[in-house]
């Protein structure tokens, strides 16, 4: 019951938030939160550290951007296509990456995403260094004009809730229980007869498709798809969001994304802009040394200590 009230409170907050906060900022937070939640599905619930999730974010973004600019499809079709393409790429990359474990998994995904980066850098349709600019937002279902920030905001919110619900369903399904079993003790999961690699693979596909969904949505919000989204920095950023918020928790990535986007927005305004990378690095180091459970993890600990479980 307690959790349900929390969901309800968050939902009401999200509905009225644009009255107090800048909608574009909120949309950015929602896109990155979805991205981080998708990433956390792998890191937090399967124990796989992917250092290449930018590839899926970028793929979703580029596909949607291309379709919106050159074929005149409606935004929902553009987003669905972007998500599917990211999922397909995830199916290919995931199949390769799950062959290795732990640190190797991180290196393989990083190298594969760099492959995607160079592909998008050289491919003629992406606009190279300039990216795709001026992507139209279009009319949702051909009716609702998304150029208006408020309608766009509620559309993004709906997408986020859908993605969040997908992840929630995945984690609490029998499939999700097996994923957790793999995270806790892989040899035992194998001995119980689970084909561990297939489970990891499917989780990878779900995670990459949702990352693609976040990328597609982000392209519509900013009307821009650029190399920044496929750069390895972006993969690092999503790791940071998840680590800071609390990996393996449901709300951690949401909070982490909010915090990181807020920090970036705040810094990029002033002359502190150049310090973003240093500050991100310091947060990484502090999180790892002092604060491995992240914000939500620490709050959970305090709640448990004071109120019992």
């Amino acid at each position, binding site marked *: 019951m307690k959790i349900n009230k929390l969901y309800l409170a968050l939902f009401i907050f999200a509905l009225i938030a644009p009255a107090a906060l800048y909608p574009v900022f909120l949309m950015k937070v929602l896109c990155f939160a979805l991205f981080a939640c998708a990433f956390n599905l792998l890191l937090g619930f399967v124990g796989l*550290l992917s250092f290449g999730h930018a590839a899926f974010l970028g793929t979703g973004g580029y596909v949607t951007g291309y379709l919106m600019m050159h074929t005149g499809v409606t935004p929902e079709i553009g987003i669905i296509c972007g998500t599917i393409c990211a999922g397909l790429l995830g199916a290919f990359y995931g199949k390769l990456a799950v062959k290795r474990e732990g*640190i190797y998994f991180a290196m393989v995904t990083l190298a594969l995403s760099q*492959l995607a980066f160079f592909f998008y850098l050289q491919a003629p349709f992406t606009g190279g260094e300039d990216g795709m600019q001026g992507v139209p937002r279009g009319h949702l279902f051909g009716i609702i004009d998304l150029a208006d920030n408020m309608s766009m905001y509620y559309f993004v919110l709906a997408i986020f809730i859908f993605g969040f619900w997908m992840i929630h369903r995945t984690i609490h399904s029998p499939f999700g229980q097996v994923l957790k079993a793999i995270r806790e003790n892989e040899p035992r999961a194998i001995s119980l007869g689970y084909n561990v690699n297939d489970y990891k693979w499917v989780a990878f596909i779900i995670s990459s498709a949702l990352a693609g969904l976040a990328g597609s949505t982000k392209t519509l919000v900013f009307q821009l798809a650029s190399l920044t989204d496929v750069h390895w920095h972006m993969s690092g950023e999503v790791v940071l969001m998840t680590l800071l918020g609390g990996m393996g928790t449901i709300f951690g990535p949401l909070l982490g994304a909010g915090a990181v986007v807020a920090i970036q927005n705040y810094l990029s305004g002033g002359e502190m802009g150049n310090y973003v990378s240093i500050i991100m690095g*310091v947060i990484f*180091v502090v*999180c*790892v*040394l002092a604060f*491995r459970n992240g914000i939500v993890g620490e709050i959970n600990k305090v709640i448990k200590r004071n109120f019992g479980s």
Partner: protein
Amino acid sequence: MATFLGINLFGLSGQLLVGLINGSFYALLSLGLAIIFGLLRIINFAQGAIYMLGAFFAWMALQYFGINYWAALILVPLAVGIIGVLMERFLLRPIANEDHLYSLLLTFGLALILQGIFTQTYGSSGLSYAIPESLKGGTRLPFMYLPNYRAWIIVASLTVCISTWWAIEKTKLGAYLRAGTENPQMMQAFGINVPLIVTITFGFGVALAGFAGVIAAPVYAVSPEMGSNILIVVFAIVVIGGMGSIGGAIITGLGMGVVEGLTKYFYPEASTTIIFLVMVVVLLVKPAGLFGKEA
């Protein structure tokens, strides 16, 4: 112009040389990673940033203190090695018993900090470092022109790689290191100071990257970005070779440099991606890597 079967030998050998030079850097960096991985079971994500640090230290030494190239060749790896020792002792050791992913994230954070500091101080455009007087000029070979400094890079890096290999495979300290790789608890039980060996190993692995940075300074622009790009390629190389053997790391590093050089000649569009593509193929055919030992 010498041609053979329609191939321009002059151009081909030029690209081969570039490939060998890149391969020398790949070999030095992946060797450092492999040594550190062997004992600590961690991947040093800051290895690229350390390489960049080595190049910057060389540049700063010349600029501010008038320390020449040859002195920098000794002093910079030493300084970088000390930084590595401090890093291991005060940052990595406290989390040594946690999941190894945390140490990866920690070193990633350090890489961001280092890169950020140098971007902040020197900008991202890159500085130039003059080739030392004694290595200027070049030799005219029958089929190509070989600049002396480029030849020196290959010689220097091969010398360091092979001596490292020899030290690890043939000396007593190397035997400790290999024993520590196999079973650190057992070695500790024999009364060997394992934490000390771990610290020294980390310092040495990092110093190799610093050394690579110094010899890279005169050929590449000294810029904050130089480390991160090469590191990702080196990661792919490490996956290709597997980190089972020291020799394997050296051979794979050099070999991939050559493969990259050849691709630059025959199909330039793929030269940035070829190593990643090789990695994909290796993962499909032999997932443990060419020299990997694990099942």
